[in-house]
């Protein structure tokens, strides 16, 4: 069972440069959250602050009663064992081979026998697609392999909180898709609280329960996935579409003259008809994996929140849930068809065991699509 991470009033500066200020958010237990933000807005600094590697000047990060910012080192050290952090650059130990790198936390903190360690390490290496590379040292592998090794090391202790710094950068599109699925499956299996920093819109829009965004020293958005995707805030909208037009420029912010010029140009152009933004379905655990308890808790939490949300946000949540339910139904049908084909092909062999795909949580009655009766 994951644990909640409550961040309150966090402010960090290096010298005179303020990285971000007064960041307040809660990573709900067992839920998956994605943190977005233009390059250089301090996402990595934020992750490192959560785990106590960087000490912000102000604010608190509470993890099960421990304040990772202000508590004495001894307590922070103990609390860190509940985290798994995947570094942006992998941060593998250059002097150890991949196997020993990934076995490191097990050897340090558990009394497992070398045989058990071997089983766990090989299994994790297999899940990140590094089987057979045990003997290589970090200097001999590609950047993408280093990241996957870093992920395997972060997962090896089955941590309660998993922080991933750009797990997708340096990976090809297929591996990125596998990685998204892997993250969701890990969440389903160990119910860890997860925070993923990424620039990948595909991951941001299909994997998490919640999305946050850092921009110009502030947390400009934090909320359920659907509401942030549907947000009309120009910064968020521009970022999610990856468009050059909008307030985000190549440097931290565009200067005023450039903005005015752009506004003039946009005014002259025919405006596209405003249509509702599509909310993609959320990724679900692979067949055979358990339900995500985090997803169920998230749904309950959002249901409680619904009455207080503006209409557009509630509508976005409804569309997101419909899309997710539809995708799950399609996947289940496809799986059943495949199972039947396999069964009829191999008669009279015994029916192969099929795992039903986990079903998403039901919609609250007021948000069921019209025409559907319970």
């Amino acid at each position: 069972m994951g644990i909640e991470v409550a961040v309150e009033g966090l402010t960090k500066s290096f010298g005179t440069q303020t990285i971000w200020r007064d960041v307040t958010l809660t990573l709900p237990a067992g839920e998956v959250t994605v943190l977005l933000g233009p390059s250089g807005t301090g996402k990595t600094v934020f992750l490192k602050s959560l785990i106590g590697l960087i000490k912000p000047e102000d604010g608190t990060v509470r993890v099960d009663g421990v304040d990772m910012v202000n508590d004495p080192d001894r307590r922070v050290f103990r609390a860190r064992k509940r985290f798994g952090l995947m570094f942006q650059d992998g941060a593998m130990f250059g002097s150890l081979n991949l196997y020993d790198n990934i076995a490191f936390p097990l050897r340090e903190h558990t009394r497992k026998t070398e045989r058990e360690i071997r089983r766990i390490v090989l299994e994790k290496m297999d899940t990140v697609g590094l089987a057979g590379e045990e003997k290589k040292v970090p200097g001999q592998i590609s950047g993408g392999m280093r990241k996957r090794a870093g992920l395997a090391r972060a997962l090896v202790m089955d941590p309660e909180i998993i922080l991933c710094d750009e797990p997708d950068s340096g990976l090809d599109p297929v591996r990125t898709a596998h990685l998204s699925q892997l993250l969701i499956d890990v969440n389903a299996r160990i119910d860890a609280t997860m925070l993923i920093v990424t620039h990948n819109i595909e991951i941001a829009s299909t994997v998490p329960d919640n999305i946050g965004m850092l921009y110009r020293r502030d947390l400009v958005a934090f909320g359920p996935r659907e509401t942030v995707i549907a947000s009309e805030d120009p910064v968020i909208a521009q970022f999610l579409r990856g468009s050059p037009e909008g307030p985000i420029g190549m440097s931290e912010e565009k200067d005023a003259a450039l903005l005015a010029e752009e506004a003039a140009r946009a005014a002259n152009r025919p405006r596209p008809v405003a249509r509702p933004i599509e909310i993609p379905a959320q990724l679900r655990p692979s067949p055979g994996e358990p339900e995500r308890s985090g997803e169920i808790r998230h749904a309950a939490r959002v249901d409680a929140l619904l009455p207080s949300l503006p209409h557009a946000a509630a509508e976005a949540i409804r569309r997101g849930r419909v899309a997710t339910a539809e995708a799950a139904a399609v996947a289940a049908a496809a799986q059943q068809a495949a199972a039947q084909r396999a069964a009829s092909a191999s008669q009279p062999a015994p029916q192969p065991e099929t795992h039903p795909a986990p079903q998403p949580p039901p919609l609250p009655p007021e948000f069921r699509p019209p025409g559907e009766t319970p």
Partner: protein
Amino acid sequence: MTTPQMSVPGAAALRQTGRLFALAGTVLAMTFRRPFQLRELIQQFWFIASVAILPTMLVSIPFGAVISLQVGSLAKQLGAQSLTGGASVLAVVQQASPLIVALLISGAAGSAICADLGSRTIREEMDAMEVMGVSPIQRLVVPRVLACTAVAVLLNGLVSVVGVAGGYFFNVELQDGTPGAYLASFSALAQLPDLYVSELKALIFGFIAGVVASYRGLNPRPGPKGVGDAVNQSVVVTFLLLFFVNLVMTAIYLEVVPAKGA
């Protein structure tokens, strides 16, 4: 809670000094923290010994010779040839030997330690270790500092012997001294505390060399150039500290332990 960044001149230097002492204290405390990193200690010990032994020997023979020649000719001018042996032995054992050992350990091993730790720091390996709840100080720094200290103490014994033997050879063979006078003056002037203080110096110097190298290695400025600068500074800072500490220790020793026959 904000930490005011004072801009008093010299504050930065004081802060660095404070952090250096804090690291030294942490290393001492962590030495007794389990699990003790025996494997790492042995590896480091072996490494430091292997890079330091040969250069130390090669330096100590001519150095012992120079001191013995210089003292020998001075003693001749003063008409005290019979005391050459003891005088040069004292100079070698008490002053030259611990310094030579510490300088070479700092130059040959400290620079390697600093570069190793520095490149690990900028590759975030230290952060990764801390995140996994393992203290890099206990895991990496303590074995290195202990290895530096132990190698310094042991090499100091070796250099003392080599220096004294070299002095004997040059005095007897080249300056027409007599073996009997050399040995007699040796036992007349030298005493066991001279050797003790020599070893104590080597111990402290080795510790300083290890701590300074580790401190700079743990706090490089970012980037490969930062590591290069850190290595450079670690050697220079160690040298400065060694000569200063040597001055203090020598002064105290000469006050506290009465010279033999005085």
